[in-house]
């Protein structure tokens, strides 16, 4: 087993155990919450096992402006939920622009990978 997966797997199992304990005290909804929360950690452990980290160097740009644009756009879109539809639309446009730009940046990187 990829060694890196062991701690998240162990931790996820502890979560399932504790969740079972809660279910035994018949707090069913909180127990469900508990079991659901173990999912991201277990999924990560499984994914890491399925796709072990390669050793090859990766190409990375020094800066990535599209990520910033995407993040700020998403934030504005979220704020538009209270400020008004106009802000959500502006934010979504900015985020979309950022996402497309990011996609191009990523494919350029893959194209230039050694």
């Amino acid at each position, binding site marked *: 087993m990829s*060694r*890196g*997966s*062991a*701690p*998240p797997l*162990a*931790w996820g199992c*502890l*979560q399932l155990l*504790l*969740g079972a*304990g*809660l279910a035994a*005290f*018949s*707090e069913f*909804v*909180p127990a469900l*919450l*508990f079991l659901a*929360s*173990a999912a*991201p*950690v277990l999924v*990560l452990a499984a994914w*890491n096992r399925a796709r*072990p*980290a390669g050793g090859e*160097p990766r190409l*990375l*740009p*020094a*800066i*990535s*402006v599209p*990520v*910033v644009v*995407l*993040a*700020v756009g*998403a*934030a*504005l879109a*979220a*704020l538009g*939920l*209270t*400020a008004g539809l106009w802000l959500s639309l502006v934010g979504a446009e900015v985020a979309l622009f950022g996402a497309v730009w*990011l996609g191009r940046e990523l494919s350029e990187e893959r194209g230039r990978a050694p």
Partner: protein
Amino acid sequence: MDGSASVALPAERAVGWLASTDHKRTAAKIAVASLFFFGLSGLLALAMRAELAQPGLQLVSDRSYDELFTMHGSGMIYLFLTPAALGLGLYLVPLQVGAAEVAAPRLALGGFWLYLCGGLAMYLGFLTDSGAGSDTWTATIPLSSSTHSPGVGMDLWVIGVALATLGSLLIALTILLTIVRLRAPGMTMLRLPVFSWTMLVTTFMVLASFPVLIVAMGLLLAERHLGGVFAGSTGSIAYQHLFWFYGHPVVYVMFFPFVGAVAEVVATFSRKRFFGYRALVVSLLLFTALSMAVWGHHMFATGAVQNQYFSLTSHLLAVPAGIEYLDLIATMVGGAILFRTPMLFALGFICQFLIGGLTGIVVASPPLDYHVNGSFFIVAHFHYTLFAGSLFGLLAGVHYWFPKATGAMLREGIGKLSFWLLAIGANLTFFPMFLLGFDGMPRRVPDYAPRLGDLNLLSSIGAGVIALGVLAFLANVCVSLRRRVPAGDDPWGAQTLEWATGSPPPRHNFDSLPPIASYAPLLDRREAREGAPA
């Protein structure tokens, strides 16, 4: 830094900082932003203590006071201590595991910007008609519904909290991926440095609990705009379950990285490797798993949760906590202890966090919690853990790793002064609160019974001393950066890989790595060179 930085245009330099994929720069941005929010939220606390210095309402209105304590607590938790903990990990983990970069650097960069936008949105509430969020950092239903707390300011708080939490979640994910996937050859999981282990278990808690808060905030926003989400008493209780499921683990997110920093500092300044590593690893896994199972203790007084289960799990936290204390002290036993500023802050953490932790066991008992919950006793408890504990741990880490990150040493004299001011200030401010709460002072009140005036005055004076301590720290940083004393690669004679490269490290972190055979590779190398000590 490469030479091109000095001839770049100011605009290029700005973009180079704001959009850098370098985990060290992203972490630096997090440090600056979290310090900014610490300052804002700290000023709010000073305003609160100024009001509370005497009985009666002198300085602020009831309404303003509600905004003060809400934004103080929210700012400190969502915008300062949580991001600072993750930012410390973002800076150090790739260096500690011998990686050239964090895994998914763009995710970390995006996370920072989401966090910053969220924080600014929350504080923007002060400029709205309805004012900033004013329903405590927990925003309990039904108080936080649009019936009782209408207005844009509260909405901005809800969305801001969700954004800041999402940003923190993304940063934590990159740290987790780095540890799991990018360790240098030879660094097995059981050779991971202590600080990186504490970061690893922190990221587990983040991954498990932060999404729940984001969902809770989304549902709260829907409740405020559409209604009918959290209906009736089951709705209010359900909200509390969702909130505290995040609300408890987050306080451990604001603890573990700093106990990790303290562990590194104690080991280095005792000139010994950390004691009881395997026991620590087991206790970290158990402690953080258990910390996900205690949240109901915030709801003992509602009568709506299984008190016995949550009391049991809450009491059990004492076991791994005790092991960690044993290991910290045993690391010092047999050592050759140096009392430099980082070590002072680490010792302050050890002694002061203990008070917070022991009072935590008190409130793990429902009959005892029934009296002290919702009072200043609890306020004292969590300020001992978070301020006198975690913040001191953060300062231990900052004073320890500042030379590595900047290439300059911090001044010892001012450092020690700031330590004593903060230690005296913290105890003067928060210890009286135990007595005040026990004697019947509820929390979240701008006014109180006249008999409680003397202790409140003492506490407010303490807050002033804390402010002086903070100023001393900031002065230390400014002076040390202006008139630099070069640090070199390893000014402390430390043990872990981040000290095996330049100060500050180059963009790619390492030119070469020493052999890795334990969690203290540099200590191994030193011992091999000097021959085994007598």
